[in-house]
């Protein structure tokens, strides 16, 4: 990727905020001061087209820097930038009043770095449940705590009124699901309010990656959220490659997209079945889960792993596709096309099932906009964004596909977005196999996998990537140290921007519809909890 320059309003405005950091690619990063940061807050307040797509921090001996990633959604491709505020006194003005998506991101920054977000509308801890034995693990010098003491109580937000009662659920749930706590306040059957508490599967991923060689960090990133292992690996690889100015072999680019579409296919097929199952319509799960299994087995046959974990690595891809792979995938596509369409007709034709999904769990477009929600959550609520199209990356810029958009914002719309995306992914897999560049033969006739060694550049570099997972847009930011190790990596799973919307979706629905709402939003716990 090359540096992208742009002359939209966003960039003009950012130039006045402060100087551009030299080593940040491919989008610009501007270092500002408190005055500039307040200007940014004003702009966010006035301009609804300015989306906050990431908010994270990093620390060195000089103190903590807070970074906000922004996108001008009214402009075209490439209108992305990062604004950085150094906080030598350990404080920064909160963005939460103008972008509610900042609330949890800032609570996480407070927990991990010990800086204060001034004016944060909800200052309670988020990832830190008081059990780590230390505080501010990502700060320059974390402070130890006594973890034998009982963890501090976590006050849920008050919700009072006649006839209201609370239902606590989790962290251990009834099915095979990840842990999290849900506190419902209900009036009879109707949910008046839902409060989520997450952080139970916080594994300290960002601290684990710090100081590690890139290859080791890639193995950790591949395990951030198992269902998106390919997408997260691509995002990390692209960020590292942007930082190091490395162009990978074209065949690797196409193989990555092939794996990404297989992953999208598998997850959507699983989700559609699981949503129907949550409406007690087990038939669709019974017929769709074998399709998912067929995708997993094909991935295994082609790349040696059912989820394709560790197959995408910085520099290229670890295995090339098996010799029989392309033919097998073309057969898979034909088979899925034949078997999927009649199941869609079943979904569409069952009034009792539609009764559960139509008008259930509505997320309004305005709210989705304020959270810059992507994926099936955003697209079911009228937001057409897709990182494969904008900012866009290879090979998708050469491929033909549509991004489905609906406006109803209910469970049904989120199902249909998945259905349409399954169809698009099937077409993409076909296109990729037909057009993928061939295998270049080595001098000795042996074909090496399309994988380059990472160059050593001998200076600190920064890179960022926006990559579309099945769930939505991943933002990954890295700083590579002069010795080639990972100085800081922040992967922002799309779940950060989608989990809060579930709280809005369930309001006014009955408790029994929560599984439907939850599964249709399908946030990743592990990807979010870091």
């Amino acid at each position, binding site marked *: 990727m090359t540096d992208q320059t742009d002359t939209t309003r966003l960039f003009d405005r950012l130039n006045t905020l402060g100087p551009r950091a030299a080593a940040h690619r491919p989008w610009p990063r501007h270092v500002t001061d408190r005055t500039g940061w307040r200007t940014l807050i004003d702009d966010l307040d006035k301009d609804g087209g300015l989306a906050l797509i990431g908010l994270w921090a990093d620390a060195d001996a000089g103190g903590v820097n807070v970074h906000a990633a922004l996108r001008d959604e009214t402009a075209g491709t490439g209108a992305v930038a990062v604004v950085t505020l150094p906080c030598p006194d350990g404080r920064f003005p909160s963005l939460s009043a103008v972008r509610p998506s900042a609330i949890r991101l800032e609570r996480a920054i407070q927990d991990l770095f010990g800086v204060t977000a001034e004016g944060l509308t909800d200052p309670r801890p988020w990832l830190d449940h008081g059990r780590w034995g230390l505080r501010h*693990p990502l700060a320059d010098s974390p402070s130890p705590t006594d973890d034998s003491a009982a963890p501090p109580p976590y006050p849920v937000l008050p919700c009072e009124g006649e006839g209201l009662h609370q239902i606590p659920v989790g962290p251990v749930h009834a099915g095979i699901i990840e842990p999290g706590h849900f506190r419902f306040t209900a009036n009879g059957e109707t949910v008046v309010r839902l409060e989520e508490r997450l952080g139970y599967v916080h594994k300290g991923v960002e601290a684990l990656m710090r100081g590690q060689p890139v290859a080791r960090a890639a193995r950790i990133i591949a395990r951030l959220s198992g269902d998106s292992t390919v997408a997260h690996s691509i995002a990390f690889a692209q960020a590292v490659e942007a930082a190091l100015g490395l162009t990978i072999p074209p065949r690797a680019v196409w193989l990555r997209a092939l794996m990404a579409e297989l992953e999208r296919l598998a997850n959507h097929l699983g989700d559609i079945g699981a949503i129907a199952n949550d409406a007690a319509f087990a038939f669709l799960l019974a017929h769709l889960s074998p399709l998912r299994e067929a995708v997993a087995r094909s991935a295994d046959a082609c790349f040696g792993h059912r989820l394709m974990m560790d197959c995408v690595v910085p520099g290229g891809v670890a295995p090339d596709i098996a010799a029989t792979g392309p033919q097998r995938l073309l057969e898979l596509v034909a088979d899925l096309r034949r078997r999927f369409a009649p199941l869609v007709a079943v979904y569409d034709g069952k009034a009792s099932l539609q009764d559960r999904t139509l008008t259930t769990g509505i997320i309004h477009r305005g709210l989705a906009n304020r959270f810059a929600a992507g994926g099936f959550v955003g697209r079911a609520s009228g937001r057409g964004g897709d990182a494969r199209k904008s900012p866009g990356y290879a090979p998708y810029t050469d491929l033909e596909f549509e991004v489905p958009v609906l406006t109803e914002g209910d469970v049904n719309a989120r199902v249909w977005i998945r259905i349409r995306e399954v169809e698009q992914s099937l077409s993409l897999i076909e296109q990729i196999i037909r057009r993928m560049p061939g295998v270049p033969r080595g001098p000795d006739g042996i074909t090496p996998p399309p994988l380059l060694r990472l160059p050593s550049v001998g200076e600190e570099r920064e890179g960022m990537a926006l990559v579309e997972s099945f769930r939505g847009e991943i933002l990954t930011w890295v700083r590579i140290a002069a010795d080639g190790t990972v100085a800081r990596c922040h992967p922002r799973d799309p779940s950060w921007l989608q989990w809060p919307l579930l709280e809005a979706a369930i309001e006014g629905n009955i408790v029994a519809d929560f599984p439907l709402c939850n599964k249709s939003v399908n946030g990743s716990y592990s990807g979010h909890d870091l």
Partner: protein
Amino acid sequence: MFNHILRALTKGPVTEPAPSPSTDGLAELAGRVDAVSRARLGRSLSIRAVDAGSCNGCELELHALNNPIYDLERFGLRFVASPRHADVLLVTGPVTKNMAEALRRSWDATPDPKWVVACGACAIDGGVFAGSYACVGPVEAVIPVDLRIPGCPPRPAELLAGLLSLLEHSAAKE
């Protein structure tokens, strides 16, 4: 839909048949699980899955066990919603410190006799998350473990194989 049902009735289930040793050794395994579990536990072994910090990769494969191709329930093995109904706790993840208490409480709530399966590299030794400030590490640091099923994540066939050896292991313990 009725066409689907009709086809299922006439063509039979998609479940991989018991005696066809070609696919992953799954079919051969199927017969052994069936014989041992019948002898030891009548026809049932109830499993409660507890995610103690997994990346959700292990959960995807546990779900796959329930699909009609593996059809776990034909062996009398089934996932249950409460630890109080379980014979086996199947634990995934590097036991995050934020989940350790919930895991301990799930174990306390499981009636005796009970077995614990550590599923996946994380549950066995912390996997790539070993040494984190936020993880306890192996499941056995929190509750006693009877069986380890390696893999990241273990394939569904390996999970089945593991459940079989649990049956043999628990029989030998007495």
